[in-house]
């Protein structure tokens, strides 16, 4: 730990507290972006959280706009309902919370209070996948894509870094239905040096390559780029696509890639059963492409414990793991 904040009453640079810890989550730009949007004249933005304004980095909005910031305490379902109520009175609510409590505990409220009435509520689900590492299964979220993907009216996207979060929030400000943004814990490596192009139903090609294509979401986008570099050393040219729009998918792009390759790879920090890869599989099957699909992600079991980076290595969800998996399938 390299402290950038010395906790009060301590002198050892190795000591750290919540404030110091949170400053490491640089990619969680939600709060900063929402403040900018509010300062730019979006007077209808209100922000809600359930005792997680600090860890999900929206506290700054509350400091700037205290009248439009609601911390509901640890009462996620009540918060989701209240967001719906606020939306009916002309406000544009943004919920920022840990994904496992927001999406998994809250799904029935998200469905009945937000999606069924088709209300313009934005939800930012942070620390998705296994980003919480040793905090354990209750704090992992490998099921949210599968659960949310079948909610009618919902748009589901996965910004993979802080600049992508900025684009995602900005480019959807006029969207009139519910939106869910699946993001990480904020300590991810930078993928985009500036806010990237972003549209609902879109995707971004980040690396070109003729031998194989990996369609990736979230943390696996950076892993895909790392795999591209590793495989390039062996002469394997891997195309990397950030498929940030999960519902709706960029169907045109997926079918183009299927046309170019007999074997497609998807990569996600989510249970491979029912996740992004399954959605791609549906698309391929419906179009009758006959493409073989390799779904890379979390196995259909609860994750073991460990520091996040160790877990990514263990499950083959880092650059090396992804490269190895792709190499193996291309050679088989």
């Amino acid at each position, binding site marked *: 730990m390299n402290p950038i904040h010395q906790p009060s009453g301590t002198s050892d640079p190795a000591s750290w507290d919540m404030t110091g810890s949170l400053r490491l989550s640089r990619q969680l730009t939600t709060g900063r972006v929402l403040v900018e949007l509010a300062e730019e004249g979006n007077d209808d933005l209100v922000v809600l959280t359930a005792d997680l304004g600090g860890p999900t980095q929206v506290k700054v909005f509350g400091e700037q706009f205290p009248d439009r910031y609601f911390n509901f305490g640890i009462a996620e379902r009540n*918060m*989701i309902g209240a967001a719906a109520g606020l939306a009916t009175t002309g406000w544009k609510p943004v919920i920022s919370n840990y994904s496992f409590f927001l999406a998994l505990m809250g799904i029935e409220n998200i469905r009945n209070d937000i999606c069924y009435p088709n209300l313009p509520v934005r939800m930012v689900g942070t620390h998705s996948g296994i980003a919480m590492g040793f905090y354990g299964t209750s704090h992992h979220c490998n099921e949210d894509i599968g659960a949310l993907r079948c909610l009618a009216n919902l748009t589901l996207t996965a910004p993979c870094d802080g600049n992508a979060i900025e684009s995602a929030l900005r480019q959807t400000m006029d969207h009139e239905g519910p939106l869910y943004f699946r993001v990480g814990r904020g300590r991810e490596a930078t993928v985009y040096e500036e806010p990237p192009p972003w549209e609902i139903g879109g995707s971004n090609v980040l690396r070109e390559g003729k031998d194989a294509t990996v369609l990736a979401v979230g943390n696996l986008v950076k892993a895909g780029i790392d795999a591209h570099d590793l495989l390039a050393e062996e002469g394997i040219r891997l195309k990397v696509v950030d498929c940030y729009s999960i519902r709706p998918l960029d169907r045109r792009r997926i079918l183009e890639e299927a046309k170019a390759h007999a074997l497609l790879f998807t990569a996600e920090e989510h249970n491979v059963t029912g996740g992004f890869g399954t959605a791609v599989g549906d698309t391929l099957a419906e179009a009758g492409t006959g493409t073989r699909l390799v779904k890379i992600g979390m196995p259909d079991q609860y994750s073991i414990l460990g520091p996040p980076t160790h877990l990514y290595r263990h499950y083959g969800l880092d650059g090396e793991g992804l490269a190895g998996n792709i190499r193996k399938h291309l050679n088989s």
Partner: protein
Amino acid sequence: MEKREVIDKDRDFLAEKAKMIRRETVRLADICGSGHYGSSFSIAELLVVLYYRLLHVRPSEPQWPDRDRFTMGKGHAAIALYPVLADLGFFPKSDLDSYTRLGSPLGDHPDMCKVKGTDFSSGSIGHNLSVSVGMALGLSLHRSPARVVCMMGDGEQTEGQVWEAAISAAHYELGNLVGIVDINKVGSDGQTREIMNTQPLADKWRSFGWHVIELRNGHDLDQVFSCLNEALNGEQRQPSVVLAETVAGKGVSFMEGTWEWHLGFLGPGDLEKAYSEIEKGIT
């Protein structure tokens, strides 16, 4: 709570509207082949006093920003609400004839996207007080004079989310929020006190920071008005809850006080008996 004008209607007018609710509930349940009679009859007087005396709404402008909001935690009693909304002119009375038929906007539970005058959808018990908290917060931020009224059931008081909402409403000092608990004492499995006892409700709500108003007879139009008027137009700064003692199935003798008529159907012979008792009015 900002006071709003009280609409003057005499007791006979209101009693006739309560009869209309019961009559139409029976008629619509007949179209459907099933109906929540018990929990609709228990709220007839509450609905009448709210909609014909206290709530400020504009049927010609259903989305009027400063309208008072009404949400139904106990959405299964929507069959009692639809006739009121039609009578007020939110939609043609003839629309009622399509109740629950294929493609109808009018289902057993209300859909805000399909039924004009319905402020929120419901059906999943325990949600709507939270939604109402959000509405009250939003209206307060707009400095709107509008109030939000959420009708809950006594069985609904077992939902944990109700108490999450109660905590947050008191925390935010939502004086523009009113909860009503229809204490009709029955649920779908029997007497609420036997299924899961939630009493003493007054102590509970008071300890959660709400202004508690105990309505001894939720079918006495004068008492109903007095209590609801205090809740909507009183001086209190905190949220208010009206604990309304009612009788499930009120108005039809063989349904009164029974849990079995939470849901049911009246065959043609019994239908006439029910209509006849409803016309006599409640005692």
